[in-house]
C-alpha cells in the first residue's frame, strides 16, 4: 500500500515527452499583443472541442518567433508546444511542410484515437503562413 501511495502522480498516461511538454509548455503567448505578430492562425476541432491558435513573427521568410494558445487535453497542449520548438527558426516554406505525423513522432507517439484531434497545430501554422503570404 505504501508503495502505491508513493507512486501517486508518478505514472503518466502519455509518453515522457508529452508529459514534459504538458507540464512545462514552451512558448505560450503571455504578455504580448496580437498586433505584435505578423501572422495568426486558428483551428478548432468540432469533434473534440480543441482549439489552437498560433502567432508568428516572420523576418525574411523565417519564423523568428512562434507563440501559441491552446484549449485542449494534455496531448493537444504538448503537441502545440513541441510544434513551436520545431518550427522556430525555420523557413516558412519548410515549416509549411510539417505534418501531424512529424509532430506525433516528435512526441514519442500518441494513442491512435488522439492523433486527429490533438495534433491540429500544423493546420493552424499553415493557416497563419497562408494569411502571411496573402498579406505580402
Amino acid at each position, binding site marked *: 500500500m505504501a508503495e502505491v501511495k508513493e507512486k501517486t502522480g508518478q505514472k503518466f498516461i502519455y509518453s515522457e515527452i508529452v508529459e514534459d511538454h504538458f507540464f512545462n509548455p514552451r512558448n505560450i503567448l503571455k504578455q504580448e499583443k496580437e498586433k505584435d505578430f505578423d501572422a495568426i492562425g486558428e483551428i478548432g476541432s468540432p469533434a473534440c472541442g480543441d482549439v489552437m491558435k498560433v502567432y508568428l513573427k516572420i523576418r525574411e521568410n523565417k519564423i523568428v518567433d512562434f507563440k501559441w494558445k491552446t484549449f485542449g*487535453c*494534455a496531448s493537444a497542449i504538448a503537441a502545440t508546444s513541441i510544434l513551436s520548438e520545431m518550427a522556430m527558426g525555420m523557413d516558412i516554406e519548410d515549416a509549411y511542410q510539417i505534418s501531424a505525423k512529424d509532430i506525433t513522432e516528435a512526441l514519442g507517439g500518441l494513442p491512435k484515437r488522439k492523433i486527429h484531434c490533438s495534433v491540429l497545430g500544423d493546420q493552424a501554422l499553415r493557416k497563419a503562413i497562408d494569411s502571411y503570404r496573402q498579406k505580402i
Partner: protein
Amino acid sequence: MKQSPIYLDYASTTPIDEKVLKAMAPYFGDVFYNPSSIYSLGLLAKDAVDKSRKVIAKFLNCQEEEIIFTSGGTESDNLAIFGYLENFESGHIVTSEIEHPAVYEAFKKLEGKFKVTYLQPDSNGLISPADLKKALKQNTVFVSIMYANNEIGTIQPIKEFTKILKNHKAVFHTDACQATGYLEMDVKKLGVDLLTLNGSKIYAPKGIGVLYKKKEVSIAPQIVGGDQELGLRAGTENVPGIVALARAVEIISSKNAKKEKQLQDYLIRELMQIKGVKLNGSRVRRLPNNINISVQGVEGESLLLDLDKQGIAVSTGSACSSRDLKPSRVIRAISTEKNAHESLRVTLGRFTTKKEIDIFLKVFKNSIKRFQEMSPYGRS
C-alpha cells in the same frame, strides 16, 4: 514534503472499509468451500451466503428470495433489462438520456426489437414525472430510470415514477448504485420492481452486486449453468464478496452522509466564488457527495492530469476520456458541448476530510489559472 494522495473519486469506486475486509477475510481462507457442496464444510459457506442474503433483504425490506447476487452493477442492470425483456417479442420501453452506460447501452442494443423512448432531463439534470406519464403507451412494458446520477449526482423522483406506473402493466427498474448509502432503500416505499445495487460503490470490493427482483416479476437468466440464485444467475457464489456486501450495508450510517453533506456545502460555496466556475446539475436534489463543475476555458482532461501530478484524483466528462471523443452524454443533455469538455467531477466519501478539501481548493485555483492563461477562450 510530498503530501499523501487525496482521493476525490468515490463515485468511481470506494476503498474497502476495514470492517468489511475483516468480515470477508475468512472466506478466502478457512471457509473457502463451495456453498453448493453438501458436506458440512460446504454448508458453512452456504450458511454465510444465507445470512448475508438475510441482511441485504432486511436492508431493502424485501424477501430473501428476491435477492440475486451478481458480479456488480453492470451485470445487475443487464440482467434486469435483458432478463425481463426476453419475455417479449416487441413493445415500447422507456429510459432516460442520462443513464449509466450499463443501462443506456443495453437499451441501445434493444432498439431493433423494441421502440425506445429516451426521456430528456431538464437543465438541472432531473427527469420529470410528467414526461414519463406522457411517454407511456399501451404497449409500454418496461421503464428503467436511475435513482441518482453517477456524473452529476442528481436524485430522481423514483416514488413519483412508480406512482404513475401503479395502474400500468410496465415493470419499473432503477439503478441505485450511486444512491445506496445516502437515500431511502426500502423497495416497498420506493415501489420498484427491480433494483440494482453495487458493492464497489459502498466500501465492499469490486465484483459483487445485487439485483432485487420482486417475486411477481419473472426474468430469464442471462448466465446459465448451475442452479445457483434460484436458477436466475448460474456460477459458484462469490462468498467473500457476498459477506462483504452484507457487512457494507450493515455499517451504512447517516452520520457519514451528514458529514459528507457539510463538506459538500463548504466546497460548493468556495467553488462558486471562483470566476468561471459553474455547477452542473441541481444544487438541491443532489447526492451529498457529488460536485460536478465546468470551468470556463479549462479542458477537463488537462485539469485532471494537472491535479493528479499534485496528488489529487478526480474525474472528468471531457471528450478525451471516451472512445468516440464525444464529451459526457449527461452534461451535453443538460448543458452545452463546451461545458461538457470543461467538466470536472469531484466526489467525496466516508474518509474525506476538511483538510483534504482545503488542499484541493488551493491546488485547483492555481491549476485552473495555468490553463486559463494558455487558453484561447481565456478569462481575459
